[in-house]
């Protein structure tokens, strides 16, 4: 059991160290949601004021509404980024170093996912701290409540990225995947507008958003930030995570998965 923990510590530690060395990545990860917050949300404050809706107890500013969506965005980008690094690692060979470890492959992949999730959680808390000083403050305990929600969301988007990484042969193909995955997932969700508001605009978009698991991740984070449990959202996110995780593990199975046909390098 101890050996498993050492392995987990090693994988998470490496990911955090690598992240600390990639300052530009850290800055980019923060600038993106901050631009949304300071520019987009501030500009649309008047046009898009949000009426009273759960879990908020009062009328809120648009900046307040958009925070959980931006938290989700940080995690979504990070999840895709770590899968991008898995494609890179596979091309460069360091994925092989991980996969020749004597631990079961499913365990190694879960370690890798947890490592990516931890990195995203660091980013989220830095973002929330900046938002706090900007004046967007949730109940103090809410910041603790969101931790489990962030872990589950991190796993969900990480497993999605991992699954995608088994389909992507080369790094160059990845930009397309980003466009076809990140943008639709983010825009067709409740990250920017509440579902009821989307419904007023377009019923079709509403239906898509209501089927998008990312919507539920955002809602789970939103409720948790206000010390509430949105059970429906939690169940949907957990179920989605399990399915994606199972598929990703299958994808990295040496006998059946995509690795059997790829792996690159040499003759």
């Amino acid at each position, binding site marked *: 059991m*101890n050996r498993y923990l050492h*392995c987990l510590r090693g994988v998470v*530690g490496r990911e955090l160290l690598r992240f600390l060395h990639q300052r530009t990545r850290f800055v980019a990860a923060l600038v993106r949601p901050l631009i949304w917050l300071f520019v987009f949300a501030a500009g649309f404050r008047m046009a898009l004021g949000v009426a009273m809706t759960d879990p908020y107890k009062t009328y809120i500013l648009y900046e307040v509404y958009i925070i959980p969506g931006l938290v989700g965005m940080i995690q979504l980008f990070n999840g895709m980024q770590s899968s991008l690094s898995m494609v890179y690692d596979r091309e460069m060979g*360091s994925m*092989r*170093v*991980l*996969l020749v470890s004597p*631990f079961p492959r499913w365990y190694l992949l879960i370690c890798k996912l947890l490592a990516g999730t931890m990195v995203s959680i660091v980013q989220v808390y830095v973002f929330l701290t900046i938002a706090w000083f900007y004046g967007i403050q949730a109940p103090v305990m809410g910041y603790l409540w969101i931790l489990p929600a962030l872990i589950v969301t991190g796993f969900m988007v990480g497993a999605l990225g991992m699954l995608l990484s088994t389909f992507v042969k080369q790094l160059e193909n990845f930009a397309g995947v980003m466009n076809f995955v990140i943008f639709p997932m983010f825009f067709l969700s409740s990250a920017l507008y509440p579902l009821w508001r989307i419904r007023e605009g377009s019923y079709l978009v509403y239906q898509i958003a209501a089927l998008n698991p990312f919507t539920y991740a955002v809602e789970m984070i939103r409720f948790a930030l206000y010390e509430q449990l949105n059970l429906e959202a939690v169940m949907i996110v957990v179920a989605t995570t399990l399915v994606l995780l199972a598929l990703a593990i299958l994808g990295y199975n040496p006998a059946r998965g995509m690795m059997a046909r790829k792996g690159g390098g*040499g003759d």
Partner: protein
Amino acid sequence: MTLGENTEVPALEVEGLSFSYSGKPVLQEVGLRLEAGQFTVLLGPNGAGKTTLFSLITRLYDRRVGSIHVGGYELRRDAVAAHARMGVVFQQPTLDLDLTVRQNLTYHAALHGMGPREARRRAEEQLQRVGLGESLKTRVRQLSGGQRRRVEIARGLLHRPRLLLLDEPTVGLDIAARRDLVERVHRLCVEEGVAVLWATHLIDEVYPEDRVVVLDAGRVRASGSVSEVLAASGATSIGEAFDTLTLGPAEVTI
């Protein structure tokens, strides 16, 4: 981990191994046997199937016919035990350039279930052995190509495997670094009693006391000691034997 194990069991035994890649056979009926302390050169031109063979032995691919045993453990059935007994140096460099040598090694140690203290001790021990004892805190980016390779060898030996696999480890090194690496690994093989499988297409990396397996177009053309391979091919030097076995007689006259 390896203490007390039966050293009679071969470090690596590959039998009747065949593998095809999208319908095209890449390896056909490959067989090898490596004993402890033996340095075996897997000699083959580019495209012979050397890397594929390595990918199968390390279980990156698993769709195959035939059996692979590492230290007596069947790779598919006892993957955990088999992986614990092999160390690998891949063809491509796989160190994290921005991390220090020690961070790279302790990461690998963690992947083998070692605690931080044990990991540090072994990292120091193995780095001394490859002549890099002073470089623990150096970032890998600051090391030369030859030094990086030596770190990878130290990493491959960190968990004291019985089998060390090296896939064209001298690619990209200058002549001096290449000679140094070949010499060091030969010495390690004797001192540590570890079985080494060294893939290359460079015949000058073969020492007279080595064992040689000549692989071409996915088949083993000859295997045994240098003298046995020479006798089998009717050649007088290993270079000539390599040409005879891999090019066919008509082309050897060039």
